[in-house]
């Protein structure tokens, strides 16, 4: 979080805390989002993502801590700031029985914005062909895209999207990724929440991993994974080589049995590969690049379950 490098901060959050009925949901979250950045709040369900997001938007009042959006505070309700931000809440909120086009015309008017951008926004989210379909006749993915369009139609600088890809089928999620990338290309700052690890890895410039209301890590996806020390995760089926023999190989740091496979953690994967090739076991080896799931496991000691 160096302030000097990429210029201006769009979001500055300091030590946000929120408790409900004695249970702390958000526990001292601090983060900074730079202008033009695609920032992901990643974490399993119940990690406090939505509560954190809604405190940033000004929808919920924090017990303590502060939020600054584009240099001003969203609390109390700040009607000078609101036109500069766009919000998609977790539940799609539309006017009953209006078409996609009519929703956008209405939302533009609520922001005092012109309706010139309505068609353009529908095209950006890929709903041009459905512009005259009523909201109750749209599919789940189309509703999510319309919801994002409603957040975009007044041309805000900063966008908050709460779980835009949740409960979508894989195809619809991929379509939405293209939409989100398209929005980023237009220079918007995006803060978004997700519980899909590989999605955050693909889309985000930087990620904050939330667990039990705390930020457990925050950096670029590459730096988070790189910080693990292991660049690669290796697995052998059980019975190919004994655990003790594996531990004695050059470059191996740790060996763990997981079900019917053996997981090898290595700081020098090349040395391990050579040693396994010498023993004729390399063909049975399965490797994959280390991912944010490994980061989560390392930081929390638990498997990531969204």
């Amino acid at each position, binding site marked *: 979080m160096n302030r000097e490098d990429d210029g201006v901060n769009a979001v500055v959050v300091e030590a946000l805390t929120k408790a409900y009925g004695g249970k702390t949901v958000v526990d001292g979250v601090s983060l900074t989002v730079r202008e033009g950045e695609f920032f992901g709040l990643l974490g399993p369900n119940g990690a406090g993502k939505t509560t954190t997001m809604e405190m940033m*938007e*000004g*929808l919920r009042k924090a017990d303590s801590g502060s939020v600054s959006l584009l240099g001003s505070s969203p609390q109390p*309700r700040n*009607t*000078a700031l*609101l*036109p500069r*931000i766009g*919000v998609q*809440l*977790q*539940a*799609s*909120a*539309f*006017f*009953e*029985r*209006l078409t996609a086009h*009519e929703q956008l*015309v*209405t*939302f*533009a*008017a*609520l*922001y*005092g914005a012109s309706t010139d951008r309505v068609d353009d926004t529908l095209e950006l989210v890929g709903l041009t062909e459905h512009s005259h379909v*009523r909201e109750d006749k749209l599919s789940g993915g189309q509703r999510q895209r319309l919801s994002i369009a*409603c957040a975009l139609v007044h041309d805000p600088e900063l966008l908050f999207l709460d779980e835009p890809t949740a409960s979508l089928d894989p195809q619809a999620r991929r379509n939405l990724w293209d939409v989100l990338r398209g929005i980023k290309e237009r220079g918007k700052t995006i803060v978004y929440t997700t519980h899909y690890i590989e999605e955050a890895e693909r889309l985000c410039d930087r990620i904050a991993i939330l667990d039990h209301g705390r930020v457990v890590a925050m950096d670029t996806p590459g730096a988070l994974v790189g910080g693990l020390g292991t660049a690669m995760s290796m697995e052998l089926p059980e019975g190919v080589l004994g655990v003790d023999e594996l531990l004695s190989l050059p470059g191996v740091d740790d060996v763990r049995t997981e079900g019917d496979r053996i997981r090898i953690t290595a700081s020098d994967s090349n040395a391990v590969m050579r040693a396994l090739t010498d023993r004729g076991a390399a063909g049975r080896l399965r490797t994959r690049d280390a991912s944010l799931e490994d980061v989560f496991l390392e930081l929390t000691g638990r498997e990531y379950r969204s």
Partner: protein
Amino acid sequence: MIAFQQMSVAVGKGFVRDRAALFFSFLLPLFFLVLFAILFGAMEGSENTLEPIQYIAPGILSFGIAMSAVTASALTLVTWRQNGLLRRLRLTPVNPFTILTSRFAVTVVVAVLQAALFLGVAFLPFFGLRLESTWWMAIPLFLIGVLSFFSLGILIGSLFRTEQSASAAANLIVLPLGFLSGTFFPLDFAPSWMDTVSLASPLRHMNDGMLALLVRGEGPEALLVPCGVLLLFTLVTTGLAGYFITRGEQ
């Protein structure tokens, strides 16, 4: 201003596309009219000085408007709270007063259309309604009456969490008000306690004023008490609704 216009258009379109709402607002009062015209037609020769249609038409009209204004405004509030639109609107720069007035504007337009259709049918020779020449003086009363029903609906909407419970509550409140207020039968026939209780009902005062102006040919001074009471009713219900809405947000 553009926000007010487009909100009104949005709510209006939503209403027009809701068949159940159209039925309750426009056809149900006509069914009541037919039903009571037949019923009272059979009772002709009673000592009531007015022709039955002269008495029942203004009452059924007020009742029909009350029913749809209360239900529609209650349901809008509950639906918007349930689907998250109310929270979403808080994150737009629009003023809550603009939201309320645009919703009210739609209620007024619907009520005027209801009245036009209803009176148009009641003028048919079969029913034979005749209005006094002073009928237009009832317009302020009509608007204040609609306002009081609207605020009652907002109060109900602020108290109930689901559409089912809110629409049941609206029915359970407005239907007895109809009986209490002389909509379906003159209060002259009712026990005196009912007459007293009905003084708390906005529908009673709307009925009184409408009857006085539309068919009894009384002057504008007959509007003072009904309008005053309806305004007071509006103030109290709006205040209560405001209290419950603010409390619900915390």
